[in-house]
């Protein structure tokens, strides 16, 4: 009997194997979309399927949230890339031979992320995250321009260092759990570790958490460790940027949160909350200021991702049911909105043939519908009222305000700074005299519109079932 949690990993991997064998990119794109849709269906099925705790796998309400976001954005990105990549081949930016591997890698990446998400074994979780990272490295370097190779190399180096440090932290967690749980598999099983956290050596847990924070924090893109992120986003194909921002950062954050739950179980160990609050705030404010100097549109939104990951880490660092709820909600909203923005940016880059903000003026004249969608998406990520991001940001700020009024000023300040920068750039790109060429846009706008609609609806009305589900997940986080 194959469980749904196994399928959510197996289907993408099988699809990847299948895609390697398919030569034509049109058929490959179709298979890619179908496989993603199938994974999405299974992922949604997990909500109904209930919970499961095994030696290697775990399904609880907390990771279902992540898996569902993963499969949703994975599906829409597959849809987007089917039309987007076709255009890249037409203009000769990508040789068609690469496409076979592009789709296979896409599915393998989705499978690896899902593997990391369902893993109950901290070693398997690490392997899943490592594989997902490696595949994205190859995808970032896909265009093989000097810039993209440089970006991929930087990403490669920094991510590998992060991987190594996280692995050392994993070994330390094992050593901490060993006296209580015995040698072998149990001391690497997350659910058992969490249960017996109170009897673990606090000092080892401290050290382990520092390593895990630096290691996985590199992949989350937290401020001093973020250097790879803008390059990787800017130089890879746009669907990859969407997946990086919308999903991979989340999965790394997920791993960090799992370990936070273990460390929080030992009162004598250091409290992970304040550390995460500080790192989150530093990322948020730093990225907000960096937004002003960006001249590349994808880099701009890469920094915006750092900003929002900072806010999410801040919320989880605050802890408590309400702040965790707000953090989860903001993570979901950010994933949807940011990947939507990258879809829009992909359209713009194809329309204008460039990623430079200075050369993308007057979008409202040349591509009015795209301009409206882009403007709405940017307003959404800025946290403008009707959209879901507003709801989650509002919730984070109010919960912080209720507990530490002065502390709430800092994220509010960072968000305002970022808001200003994004509006400035939005105005530059959408209005003004059109510059440069205006190509036809081939890529499908369905995913972009879908994401915007989802964010819009969730800003106005969140179904009670969804709220209850997120609340239960937030309570698990403690």
């Amino acid at each position, binding site marked *: 009997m194959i469980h749904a949690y196994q399928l959510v990993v197996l289907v993408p991997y099988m699809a990847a194997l299948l895609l390697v064998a398919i030569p034509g990119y049109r058929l490959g794109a179709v298979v890619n979309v179908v496989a993603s849709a199938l994974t999405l269906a299974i992922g949604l099925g997990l909500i109904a399927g209930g919970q499961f705790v095994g030696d290697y796998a775990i399904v609880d309400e907390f990771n279902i949230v992540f898996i569902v976001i993963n499969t949703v954005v994975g599906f829409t990105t597959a849809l987007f890339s089917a039309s987007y990549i076709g255009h890249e081949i037409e203009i000769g930016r990508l040789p068609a031979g690469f496409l076979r591997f592009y789709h296979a890698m896409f599915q393998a990446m989705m499978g690896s992320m899902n593997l990391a998400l369902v893993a109950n*074994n901290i*070693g*398997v979780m*690490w*392997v899943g995250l*490592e*594989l997902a990272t*490696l595949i994205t*490295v*190859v995808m970032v*370097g896909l265009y*093989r321009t000097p*810039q993209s*190779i*440089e970006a*991929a*190399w*930087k990403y*490669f*180096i920094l991510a*590998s*260092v992060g*991987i*190594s*440090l996280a*692995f*050392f932290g994993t*070994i330390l967690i*094992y*050593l901490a759990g*060993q*006296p209580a749980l015995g*040698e*072998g*598999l149990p*001391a*690497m099983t997350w659910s058992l570790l969490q249960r017996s956290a109170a009897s673990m*050596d606090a*000092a*080892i847990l*401290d*050290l382990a958490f520092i390593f895990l924070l630096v290691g996985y924090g590199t992949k989350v893109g937290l401020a001093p460790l973020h250097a790879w992120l*803008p*390059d990787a986003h*800017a130089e890879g194909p746009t669907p990859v940027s969407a997946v990086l921002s919308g999903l991979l950062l989340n999965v790394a954050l997920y791993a960090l949160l799992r370990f936070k739950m273990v460390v929080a179980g030992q009162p004598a160990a250091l409290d992970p909350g304040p550390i995460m609050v500080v790192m989150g705030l530093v990322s948020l404010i730093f990225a907000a200021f960096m937004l002003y*100097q*960006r*001249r*590349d549109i994808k*880099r701009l939104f890469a920094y915006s991702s750092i900003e929002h990951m900072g806010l999410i880490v801040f919320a989880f660092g605050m802890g408590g049911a309400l702040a965790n709820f707000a953090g989860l909600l903001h993570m979901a909203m950010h994933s949807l909105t940011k990947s939507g923005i990258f879809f829009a940016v992909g359209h713009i880059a194809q329309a204008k043939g460039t*990623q*430079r903000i*200075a050369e993308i003026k007057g979008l409202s004249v040349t591509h009015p519908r795209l301009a409206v969608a882009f403007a709405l998406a940017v307003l959404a990520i800025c946290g403008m009222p009707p959209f879901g991001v507003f709801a989650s940001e509002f919730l984070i700020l109010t919960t912080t305000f209720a507990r530490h009024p002065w502390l709430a000023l800092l994220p509010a300040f960072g968000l305002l700074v970022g808001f200003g920068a994004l509006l400035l750039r939005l105005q530059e790109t959408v209005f003004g005299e059109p510059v440069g060429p205006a190509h036809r846009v081939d890529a499908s706008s369905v995913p972009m519109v879908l994401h915007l609609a989802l964010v819009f609806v969730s800003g106005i009305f969140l179904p009670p079932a969804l709220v209850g589900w997120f609340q239960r997940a937030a309570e698990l986080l403690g």
Partner: protein
Amino acid sequence: MNGYDISHLLAGAMLVTSFALLYQDRIAAVLNAFAMQSITLALAVAWAAWSDDRPDLYITALIALALKGIVIPLALHRTVERLGIHHSVEKVVGVGVALMVGLALTGLAQALVVKVASGTASHAREQLALALAIVLLGFLMMIVRRNAVTQVVGFMSMENGLILAATGARGMPLVVEVSVAFSVLIALFVFAVFVFRIRERFDTVDIEALDRMRGDSR
């Protein structure tokens, strides 16, 4: 000579080769030092496999010996010759400073582990401290060397330290799997150097070139 002596000796020898990696200024010598370290790691893992009676670790030892002790150093030797960068390594800081920082990191590793793992058995603690020092020194090497090949070597040295730490943690499952996963990573690394012919992180220190890389010029 008891079992503890041997594992401790091998781990200590690995630490010494880590310093040799920091010290060497010719790429060929760096690669040789790395091969030495990997072979020592293979011995250490094989010893752990024998003394702890964990036959699966022999696979890890074999991977360390074959891949990192022989194949990769040879492949990198060839790459370096073909790229014509075998003369010297561009350094960000001098050997003296690098060694001093390396010593400080080694001290830090010991201090952390002694403080942290006071409860565990002393030999496990020492192994862990040495492994952490090797990891940190590999990290340092990646920072102070600009050249892509030496960065790869620095990473692999880091990874050697991790494998050492994992074998030192008694009964840790998945060590073999993780070492395989790491090998895939390393193979990709070497492949990247080989295929993309990355000479250095930046071919020139021209400010404009750096700006272009950041996408922020004009």
